[in-house]
């Protein structure tokens, strides 16, 4: 605390770093508080609007009702049939399986197209055509083929994850700097070595962007399949609530999906920051 503490440059640097870190921390806490304040403001506005305009709760329930619906779905044992956990588990499980399958296939086929011209020439037209097709429109066909069950959920999730992964891994691998390819060529590296050691890491930021999109799409695909007919899942919870005009119940399920979506997005981002530690500083 005394002036002797900052007598050496080293101490000075350390104190400066500390001060900057504290400043950043304060800023971040400030931002979070602002977000929370905004959220509370919105909820209050919602409640007031519902009361002032006398909106019937089967059109738009107030936040209090939604909260109650949420609570009654969450404050139950994990394996309760009336809670959110069982359907959420089903939705997430099938979305995750579809995501894994779709992401793997997308990466493989995207790599194949980027690496081999004939594969690109043969497959690109289909990729283009399917890319511009709203893939949700395929859902009824999938139901016909895979039935009203979990198979359709997985297939839809895989299908929707597949395309962003295909496009992104293709573009990412093609973005490899020619100089790095020259380096590997000068070392007589094999095609596989060049792919694994140079192209794949180069494509990593693209691949993570594809995964980030894919994780949301996988959830979307699963829900759509559940809408069209399934025995369990959050999509089923939503259609059942809708059938009895339990709009608060629908909202509660949407809140759950929103939170899950954000959590998955953050999970991808955190993983990305760990895996591609070099990218923000390098580019």
């Amino acid at each position, binding site marked *: 605390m005394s002036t002797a503490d900052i007598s050496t440059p080293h101490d000075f640097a350390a104190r400066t770093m500390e001060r900057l870190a504290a400043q950043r921390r304060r800023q971040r806490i400030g931002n979070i508080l602002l977000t929370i304040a905004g959220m509370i403001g919105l909820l209050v506005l919602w409640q007031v609007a519902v009361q002032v305009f006398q909106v019937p709760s089967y059109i738009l329930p107030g936040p209090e009702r939604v909260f109650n619906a949420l609570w009654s779905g969450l404050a139950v044992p994990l394996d309760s049939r009336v809670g959110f956990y069982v359907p959420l588990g089903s939705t997430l499980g099938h979305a995750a399986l579809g995501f894994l399958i779709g992401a793997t296939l997308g990466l493989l086929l995207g790599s194949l197209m980027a690496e081999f011209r004939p594969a690109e020439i043969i497959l690109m037209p289909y990729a283009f055509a399917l890319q511009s097709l709203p893939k949700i429109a395929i859902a009824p066909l999938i139901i016909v083929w895979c039935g009203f069950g979990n198979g359709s959920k997985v297939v839809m999730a895989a299908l929707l994850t597949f395309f962003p992964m295909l496009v992104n891994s293709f573009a990412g691998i093609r973005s490899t*700097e020619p*100089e*790095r390819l*020259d*380096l*590997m*060529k*000068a*070392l*007589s*590296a*094999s095609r596989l*070595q*060049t792919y694994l*050691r*140079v192209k794949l*890491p180069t494509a*990593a930021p693209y691949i993570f962007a594809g995964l980030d999109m894919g994780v949301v799409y996988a959830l979307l695909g699963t829900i759509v399949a559940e809408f069209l007919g399934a025995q369990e899942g959050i999509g089923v919870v939503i259609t059942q609530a809708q059938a009895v005009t339990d709009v608060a119940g629908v909202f509660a399920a949407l809140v759950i999906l929103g939170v899950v979506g954000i959590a998955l997005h953050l999970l991808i981002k955190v993983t990305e920051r760990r895996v*591609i*530690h*070099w*990218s923000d*500083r*390098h580019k």
Partner: protein
Amino acid sequence: MSLTATLGHTAATAQVAAGQHDPAIPTSAPLIRARGLVKVYSTVSGDPVVALDDMNLSMADGEFVSIVGPSGCGKSTMLRLLAGLDTPDAGEMTLGHQPITGPSGAVGVVFQNATLLPWMTVWQNVILPLQVGGGNRAAREDAVREYLSIAGLTGFENKYPYELSGGMQQRAAIVRGLARDPKVLLMDEPFGALDALTRERMNGELQRIWMASRKTVLLITHSIGEAIFLGDRVVVMSGRPGKVLEDLRVNLPRPRSHAETIADPEYIRLAREIRRMLDA
């Protein structure tokens, strides 16, 4: 004319040092010999670009040759041909007595930008040449460690390139170029991105590494000072299409130090001559 430039260099006579080549003096077989190289690039816009036209170069074993020339005259093209990364449209190149037809373990390359792979640590980067391209070269790891220490990078093995200064990255790239113990090291403006002072220090370190390893080195550079300071010879290229304008021998004792070299009358004479040629 260019054949003269090709053959005249190996005799370290006062005559040659003065820039006058004497093809009559017998030469030992050069390690690298390139004759009549032509490289034409076709471009999207139509007109083909003649990058090299009748380019000749030969280098004796253990020799350090610098190439200077105006930007775009085909220096990098020349290096790519020698490295086996590209094929010439005419002419022949040999390494030892073998024609150069593709990349070879006997040639190490240091590219214009450091091209260290950012997802690998310094150590992973410098032993990359030992891990790819087939063959078991694990036995060379100790030698690579030795080069790292000569390059002043001991203790930085586990750092990532972005944690290193530009000069350290370049030194790591040079160590990588030496990893397979190549007979020849080709370097394309390895210090182009560095500030003048760092560059001079790097020149000193490169001289040290070279004197310790005794490789045959081809250095492409924009810096006349760097070319003279490091080279046994300086090859001056003409503007595009590139060919040899002059092949000058540098008669300065080694090890050279910047402080003394730049004051040496020989250095001053060479620098003036090269500048005159490049300005013409």
